[in-house]
């Protein structure tokens, strides 16, 4: 039987795999943190989610380092970690919130009120719809890639995305002061 890449890694010693993981993490964790923030809506919860997801990725690194797409695998771990009942129960036990940082949105030059309203509406979406929105419209995954990441059917992704967009439009449509996003209805 030919020597596998994984066996070669073992031969190279743990330091090589460790350095490999560290390098990947340095390059990718920023994106994971941003995605986690959109999923959780909370800075501390996002950091904790990514910390756990990266730890699990590290423990499985020998198995996944040579997978076709480590990024896709990591994203799947992150999303599963967030949506799984393990994660949800932990969150129920230790409710974390930094709402103070969100109640008063940062008013940058581009602040027009729509962003805060949209973010509020996204945060209010049911968990699965929110995950679909984040993966489809932030990560810009295809419907198929989104379905793979969430472990659901293509039809579920389509229906959840459709419902989410309808909800967001309805939510934003309730505001009289908005002239941006909902104008495309």
């Amino acid at each position, binding site marked *: *039987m030919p020597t*596998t890449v*994984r066996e070669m890694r*073992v031969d190279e010693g743990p330091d090589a795999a460790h350095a490999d993981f560290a390098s990947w*993490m340095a390059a990718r*964790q920023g994106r994971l*943190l*941003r*995605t986690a*923030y*959109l999923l959780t809506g909370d*800075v501390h919860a*996002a*950091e904790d989610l*990514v*910390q756990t997801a*990266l*730890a*699990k990725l*590290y*423990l*499985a690194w*020998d*198995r*996944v380092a040579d997978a076709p797409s480590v990024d896709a695998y990591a994203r799947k771990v992150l999303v*599963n970690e967030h*949506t*799984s*009942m*393990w*994660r*949800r*129960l*932990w969150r129920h*036990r230790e409710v974390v919130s*930094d709402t103070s*940082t969100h109640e008063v949105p940062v008013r940058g030059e*581009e602040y027009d009120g*729509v*962003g805060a309203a*949209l*973010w509020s509406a*996204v945060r209010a979406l049911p*968990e*699965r719809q929110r995950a679909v*929105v*984040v993966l489809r*419209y*932030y990560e810009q995954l295809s419907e*198929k890639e989104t*379905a*793979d990441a969430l*472990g*659901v*059917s*293509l*039809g*579920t992704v389509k229906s959840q995305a459709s419902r989410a967009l309808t909800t967001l439009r309805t939510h934003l449509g309730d505001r009289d002061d908005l002239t941006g*996003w909902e104008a*495309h209805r």
Partner: protein
Amino acid sequence: MNTETDLNTRLTREADSFFRNGGTELDLSQVLNRAGEIRRGRRMRATMLMAACVLAIAAPTALVVTNRHVTTQPQPTQHGRVDESPLALGDLPVGDSPHHGFSEDGTWQLRVAANGLGGLRGQVAAAAAVKDGAMVAMRRESGEMTAYFIYEQGGVSEQSWPMESGSAFAVSDGGNVAAFVEPDGTVVAVQDRGTQSFELGTIPRGTGFTAVAVDYEDCSEGAACNVYAATRGGEPETYLLQPGTTPKALSPALAHTTDVSSGRFAGFTSISDTGSCSAVRDAKLTTLWKSCDHRLLAFSPDGKHLLASGAYGDGMGDGELAVLDSDNGKVVLDLKTAAEGVLTQMVWEDDEHLLAVMHQPGRWAVLRIGLDGSREYAVEPVKAEDDTASPFVLPTL
């Protein structure tokens, strides 16, 4: 600017605010510390179990009884005939192939290879052994799943049914009924060799459920059939579906049900990042016994035992296979995998044997494991084309 582009722009801006709102990148040491916590959680439970074994030998009366109903998990009986050496894909005897069939590389393996399975599109994603055949769920490229009845000697039922993606079948003890959940939350029971099917009701929450148990051999209108369906993630909930009635949500105490047998519910009672506790309860919610060393997966066909694994599960495979006495939680068998060994699926084959899909670097195989720890290959090791995805799917009972 269209809606999707606008949404991307807004979300990107919000995502970038993670750092403006005080978020910081993680140090490698933080990740390694968390990995260490996860590892230590596993080791601690193993160490506590070993220490408790010693205590059990020296002073068996030390078992703690918290009240007259609830006992902590007793320790394994010490007898020399149990092989508790680590599971490994080594030099093992080769036995029969899985008695109820199996899938390899997405294709269901028939006992009589000459008989075809025309009409099946996609790859086998889930399977269940039923009377005179198997229920098999095929997943297409789109991710959508379709359920079929496959006859033991070949051939496929005329009827097929849509099935919730990622869900599984539940089968009655006698194997006459297989239940599953459709994508819209409708629970369906297929019986009598796939010739009859009954819609038992639609779970109000819709998607995200899987069937976990069926306790009767007939689910036709008016029959005393109970089908249980539970969430696969998200907010935990378990529903009871009976012919001709509205689906009922069970008590939150049974929300995490993983299997039901003779009125006993196995499932989680608490879950954390580093472990879990589970219990067996009766229908009156009395806790019969509990364990924080194992998570409970499935009752044996005769209901006497429970297949279990480690209390910590991360979805990447298990390093432990255990069998517990379903009456009291006593450990009958507790096997760990050898270094780098991972178990990706464990099922009962009959009352006395389990099948487990195991991976070690570069290889996958199906092991048959007896309650005495004996083991043989049900499918000899094959070269791993993909170290992260098993080529095998085993049918549940």
